[in-house]
């Protein structure tokens, strides 16, 4: 190094010569952070990728794979957030989404048609909770780690506003929607798992792909949405604000519960 003291060999990129030796592993930058060396990262990326491909239900592996492959997409999301007032507020306040920060009971008392109620209905119908999200561990920059965390925690909202179930073909459709909207490479690779779908599901998915790509690419960058401030907003108004339109009506495995009302686009089977 010219301006510095040591000369270092081996590079990760020609201008940022920096190889972290295990011995010089830096201290964690935020609680839960696991700093990794470059070879470790490569190994983790390949390993988690393979696992995620063959066992898509392993959410933890999908999460690790997402972190490992984010690359320039995360800073780009950060830029999108810094560009608008709502996004800057999220970065400043760093809100988290789980059952301790979000009062689900209060949301379920909101009038039908509001975003909050739609979300709770969706959670009930799919039988999921907001607590199933893995914490981010391997992104070094704390701010980028938060962006990754935010993306992960907001994923369910995309399902909810579009009225999409969680079964695998809809999951892929939402992932492709996210790819067109946010550009995280992992979401595109999720599209690869299409080849492992049975033909019937694949056919159903192909109806959703054009919607996912068009709607995702033309909508406002969804990472910049302060969802928690919009619980009371009418979900159709919200979609209009964001430039999101309805996908073809999905087929739900589980019929709509008695009082939940369900999402506007759902079709019973």
């Amino acid at each position, binding site marked *: 190094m010219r301006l510095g003291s040591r000369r270092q060999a081996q590079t990760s990129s020609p201008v940022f010569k920096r190889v972290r030796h295990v011995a010089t592993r830096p201290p964690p930058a935020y609680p839960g952070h696991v700093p990794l060396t470059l070879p470790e990262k490569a190994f983790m990326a390949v390993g988690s990728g393979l696992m995620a491909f063959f066992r898509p239900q392993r959410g933890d592996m999908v999460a690790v794979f997402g972190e490992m492959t984010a690359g320039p997409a995360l800073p780009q999301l950060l830029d999108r957030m810094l560009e608008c007032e709502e996004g800057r507020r999220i970065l400043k306040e760093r809100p988290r989404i789980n059952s301790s920060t979000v009062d689900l009971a209060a949301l379920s008392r909101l009038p039908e048609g509001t975003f909050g109620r739609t979300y709770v209905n969706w959670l009930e119908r799919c039988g999921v909770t907001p607590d199933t999200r893995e914490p981010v561990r391997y992104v070094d920059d704390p701010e980028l780690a938060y962006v990754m965390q935010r993306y992960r925690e907001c994923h369910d909202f995309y399902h909810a506003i579009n009225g999409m179930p969680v079964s695998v073909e809809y999951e892929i459709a939402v992932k492709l929607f996210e790819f*067109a909207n946010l550009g995280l490479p992992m979401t595109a690779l999720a599209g690869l798992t299409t080849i492992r779908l049975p033909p019937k599901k694949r056919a159903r998915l192909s109806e959703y*792909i*054009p*919607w996912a*790509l*068009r709607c*995702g*690419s*033309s909508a406002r960058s969804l990472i910049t949405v302060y969802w928690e401030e919009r619980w009371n907003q009418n979900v159709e108004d919200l979609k209009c604000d964001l430039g999101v339109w309805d996908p073809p009506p999905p087929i739900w495995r589980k019929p709509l519960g008695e009082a939940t009302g369900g999402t506007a686009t759902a079709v019973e089977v």
Partner: protein
Amino acid sequence: MSLHIASRAGVRLSQRILKRNLATTAATVEECDVVIVGGGPAGLALASALASSQNAWRVLKVRLVEAGDLSKIREWNMPPGAYSNRVSSLTNASEDFLNRVGVWRHVAQERTCAMEDMQVWDGISDARIEFSANRLEVGSRSGSGVSYMARMVENLNLQRAALTHLEEHPSIQLLDKAKVETIVNEETNGGWPLVHLSTGQTLRARLLVGADGFNSPVRKFARIQSFGWSYPTQAIVATLRHAPHTIRPHTTAYQRFLPTGPIAFLPLSPTSASLVWSTRPDLAAALTKADPAILAIMINSAFRLPNISMKYLHDRIRGIVASGATLQLDEIRQEIAWREQSHQIESHSPLASALVDPFTSVVGVPPADSELYPPLVHDLQPDTVASFPLRLSHAESYIGEGKGARTVLIGDAAHTVHPLAGQGLNGGLLDAECLVRSIDGALATGSDIGSYTALARYARERYIQNHAMLSAVDKLHKLYSSELGPVVWARSVGVEIINELDVLKAGMMISAGANANVMKGSPGWNLLASSVESVSGGVQIAKALRQGLQSAAAGVLKQASNALAGRS
């Protein structure tokens, strides 16, 4: 003086500069940031856009210089039903721009006319292409939910709206009845352009905008060459009055490509339309000098009679004029009637015009295919017939350099175009829009808005687009001037095929500015989505191609058999 210089050379220099500044202020030189020369649609649109821009109006001192009397345009008023003969088809992209700028709300809407459909056909082969904004789902939507691809607007209506808009923005001063006497370079002090006006004022311009038309003095000052050529063609314009439509709303434009040039019928109201007829100069002279009733019946036949008869009529008119006689209405009417007879056009056919009363023709059941032709013209609005030569020209550059630095050209000063696609005025408006965008961008980075670097983006973007437009229009003109069999055949087959392909037609309309915001999502993603969809839809395109080729082949066979029949 905050410009203080510590070095000795610098001090000497600054003293010299100071002296010079004092000298120039003595001669009442007004410092301006933008001086726009020309109060035509492009110049006024530029001034309006600067007035409405985020920052420009606040920080820039803008002056617009016009030799004419702008109050005449401001007070322009025509009775309902009467229309000026200078009409443009405003694309939706242009309308959107005017809307954003705030000019559009001052346009008298009742005097404009949305164009929903377009009928374009070949004067020789009759190969036809139809555009429908509603069917192709392109274009803007009006309040009633109907799509339209363009809107007919009188130029004066636009100019008046811009002037009304500018009245709300006194920061932009209009200097009318002020002729540009000379434009010179400052000899010292940076070499900025000095504009001397007939009123005795002198403006020192950071940026001098030439919106001063085809013979642009600004372009001459900037020593920018302009290349181009005149067409052996004169355009006749007039305001037509016709019987109301019966089967269709009055929202269809018609254009027929005759070998002498295209004739276009552009709707203005249920009973009026604007004519742009490009034809040979001698014919144009004869027709504009003749009784307007003769021009009216000639217009009707020019949309209907086969080319061979149009040629015959042209020759007759030339003969009469050459013999020194004047054209007689009855004589021409008889000639047309005879040609209709020899083509076996029956009196109730939509192709009949000579002996049909335009008002009775619209009563009762309309003849089949009557929607393919414009309604019959019964007379012309008085004093609206005019003609002007057609030419194509394009400046070599839009930005002046060296001695002509700090100048930029927009509108007709930069490019003049054959009016067959109605793109002349739109080009000027888009120039203004793009220039304001460049100026705004330059202000945001603290750049000097008169510098080459600040203007380069404007020049690059608009030059390429205008050049593509000019050469496309020119090629179209040349293609349709030809009467050569193979050329006519090829262009007709092309048109027949295109007419079957809605996607291609939609694309053509979008590239002609039918869509206000070109694409909502990014084009790449849309393409990807479309390609996923068209895996199954690919079959359709193949089908359309086959149909197009079949109908073209049938046409050729018919022509061939006609030719054989004629010979035997």
